[in-house]
């Protein structure tokens, strides 16, 4: 859900239901590193409601576009983390099984 003005699309507040710090803090991290963002932050209006508000203000680009790019960046990072992790696990399993074979010198 987006709350912004029609006149100025460069600043909006997005309200995500069913999300918490897990996503909001990651998105804030990704948004902050985008040079188009002049301000971003998130808040959880009430701890008993599963809802976060993410505020995005940009230097001109539409806030929703910037947010979408940040989310896409996050997804790409996650994919890379997963690939790297899987490779590291396979490598460690291989080296463990080599060690278990106990070659005699």
């Amino acid at each position, binding site marked *: 859900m987006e709350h912004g003005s029609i006149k100025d699309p460069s600043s909006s507040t997005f309200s995500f239901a069913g999300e918490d710090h897990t*996503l909001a803090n990651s998105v804030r991290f990704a948004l902050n590193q985008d040079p188009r963002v002049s301000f971003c932050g998130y808040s959880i209006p009430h701890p008993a409601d599963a809802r976060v508000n993410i505020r995005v203000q940009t230097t001109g680009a539409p806030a929703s576009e910037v947010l979408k790019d940040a989310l896409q960046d996050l997804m790409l990072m996650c994919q890379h983390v997963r690939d790297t992790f899987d490779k590291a696990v396979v490598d460690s399993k291989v080296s463990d099984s080599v060690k278990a074979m106990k070659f005699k010198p």
Partner: protein
Amino acid sequence: MDDVPMGQLPPHIQLQRTRVFCASDAPTQTENVQYSGAYASMGVDNSFRLEDFVKNFRVEVVRLTEDDMEFDMIGIDAALANAFRRILIAEVPTMAIEKVLFANNTSVIQDEVLAHRLGLIPIKADPRLFEYMSVNDTPNEKNTIVFKLHVKCKRGDPRITVKSDQLEWLPNGSEFQLVTDNSNSNSNSKPKTYTSFSSSQTSLPEFSENSIASKHDDIIIAKLGPGQEIELEAHAVKGVGKTHAKWSPVATAWYRMLPEVVLLEEVEDQKAEELVKKCPVNVFDIEDVGKGKRRAIVAQPRACTLCRECIRGNDWEKLIALRRVKNHFIFTIESSGALPPEVLFTEAVKVLEDKCAEVISDLL
């Protein structure tokens, strides 16, 4: 600052950017600088580049066992490391007993307490093979695992202990019949039970060979005295840890930042021995430098718990710097048994990806 070339951070700022300083009174520089223009005045671009992330990100597995793993995650921000940790604890699904149907319980442990105990038993079943059951769904072979427990202690026998290996998996679903008015009218058809399985779960290739059971066979469920009996059916469903901790796939998952111990000056002879003795986890060691001279070295910085015992008193703080590396996480996952720890982590990363994808599709 005319001696620092443009486009490069002065060393002390670079250090503040990448390290947490653990002084004797308090840690400082604990925040991560995320803002893209934070160092613009020094000509340094702090914005995100995927190529840089791909180039710098590393994972090194330290320990990997059946249900326990430790690995180093290097070159990632705390925001993401923490997201993975939170998801591991609260949002990776598992199967856990949610409904218990009591036919008989004459033991001293009350129905509701026994049901709660059963819920906490880790079940060795891959949750990815099951679907979530929502309120209006009928229990079927795709969303429910049924266990039976029928134990009795005969009169005159000694007390018995009921353990989790006595939970018997029912791949064909519930055996308790629903009481219906027209039970005589269609006596040929299968009697209606509390579940409606259309096929046996053993027909799935994953379960045909290894049956579903409790992860541990020696969890004490109840104790029965002579003449006492428990007869019940337990229905396990898929869920996540934020609903109830019984669905959490990890005993715990945590990370710590890599400790960095630096000797700012040479610590020699008497002082070196004093330093080695000060550290309760043996981070320091002594090295012979010849001519009878001995000096302290940092032998095991990873063992450091940052207890700050080594920088206590006198001028020790001028000799030793304790720091933490902000983008180096020592991540530990202890699985509770449904899935191996390495699978849990990849599942956690997938959950974050799915969250992002969902929000993107909402924005369109």
